[in-house]
């Protein structure tokens, strides 16, 4: 049976027995993998150099079961390679990380690798660990996720008439923006503010992360503009998942209390 060495992020873990867990991993080169981790809870086995927690980043050795549907692999080695203790110091950071893990787990297929998605999730977790607000980082991640799975909507022009201005709505069903003239005949739609529209069509979310920009440059969205893009991308992601992530509402309550 093939033995796999890869980098991985823990998306979910569930107790299987007193000592074992079933974990869902996003591996860098082998996509999402579900694996049985025998004896990992006691942390007595040396091949599990450390305990395995939700959203931990590390190196795994897996024995892949014959690839037929939802097969369960066996985790034989685990070593955490990146520790982000600051991720756990603020509740919104934890919620943002849990949101990212949840939507990743639900929108990816097992054994379908997306290197860019893995890298985007690592970048999101590292950024969240020092973040003062969640929305900008999570919106970038949502964008990368949709791009990776081939479900990125069209943001720069109306999906019906190609018009590039007066984009007032978004339709998940149509896969993009709707202009004010086409809006009335579209039933499934989500109102989009000017600021949100500008961020999404600018390509900023796809560009490499940059430190906060100089305030004199115009048209550059301030971090305050990011709940909008987050909310819109979450609307689309919920449409694709057929349900909303339980983490959406928790994340959106950030800053309101």
């Amino acid at each position, binding site marked *: 049976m093939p033995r796999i060495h890869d980098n991985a992020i823990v998306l979910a873990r*569930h107790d299987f027995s*007193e000592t074992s867990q079933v974990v869902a991993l996003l591996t860098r080169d082998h996509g999402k993998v579900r694996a049985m981790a025998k004896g990992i809870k*006691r942390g007595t086995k040396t091949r599990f150099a450390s*305990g395995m*927690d939700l959203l931990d980043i590390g190196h795994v050795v897996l024995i892949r079961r014959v690839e037929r549907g939802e097969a369960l692999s066996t985790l034989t080695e685990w070593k955490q390679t990146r520790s982000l*203790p600051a991720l*756990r*110091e603020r*509740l919104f950071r934890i919620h943002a990380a849990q949101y990212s893990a949840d939507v990743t787990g639900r929108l990816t297929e097992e054994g379908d690798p997306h290197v860019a998605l893995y890298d985007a999730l690592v970048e999101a977790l590292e950024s969240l660990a020092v973040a003062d607000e969640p929305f900008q980082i999570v919106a970038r991640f949502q964008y990368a996720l949709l791009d990776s799975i081939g479900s990125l909507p069209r943001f720069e022009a109306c999906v019906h008439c190609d018009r590039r201005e007066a984009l007032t709505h978004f339709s998940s069903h149509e896969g993009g923006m709707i202009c004010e003239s086409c809006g009335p005949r579209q039933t499934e739609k989500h109102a989009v503010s000017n600021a949100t529209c500008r961020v999404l069509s600018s390509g900023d979310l796809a560009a490499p992360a940059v430190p906060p920009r100089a305030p004199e440059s115009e048209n550059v969205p301030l971090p305050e503009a990011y709940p909008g893009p987050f909310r819109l991308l979450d609307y689309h992601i919920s449409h694709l998942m057929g349900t909303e992530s339980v983490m959406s509402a928790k994340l959106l309550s950030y800053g309101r209390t």
Partner: protein
Amino acid sequence: MTTNRGPIESLARLREQFEKLPGIGPRSAERLAFHILREPRDFAAALSRAVLDVKDKVKHCRTCFNLTENDPCSICADPHREHGEVWVVEQPQDLLVLEATGLIRGTYHVLMGHIAPLDGIEPEDLTIDALLERVRSGSVREVVLALNPTLDGDGTALHIQSLLKELDVSVTRPSRGLAVGSQLEYATVSMLDAAIRGRSAM
């Protein structure tokens, strides 16, 4: 669907019950069932009585939610304990681990789990309201959040801390002597000792 249990129906039934226990596979279940069959009747009677007593007599302490046969539990009822100091833990097993160190003079509060939104466990599923009530009653001056150092444990601690912020109580956590992602239950005594003595304000 009815399962064919073979000629010795009662033995098969006992084996099936054992198989439902954690860590017991079919082979062990069979061994246990045969063991009971060989032992005198008194042994089987004592075993079944002990099993039922656990279900009938053990309840949760109304103050701290620890498992007990008497309400309040022996810790809550002990006048020599420091009642102004409350150690918040996830499970009764965690309480036993801390209590075994002999270092805790305060009392406890068992949450009965941790918040895990992705698993559908929300704050209202735990005993957080009862903890707030205890603190509001005025006698508590320090709450030590001794949850497991996991992502969910840390999230639960931050949630409780935000609720306690408005109340007149100091909130601390045991020091980070425990490996992140590990469970209190499996910590060594020296790790616990360091973590308990070196607690810090949140």
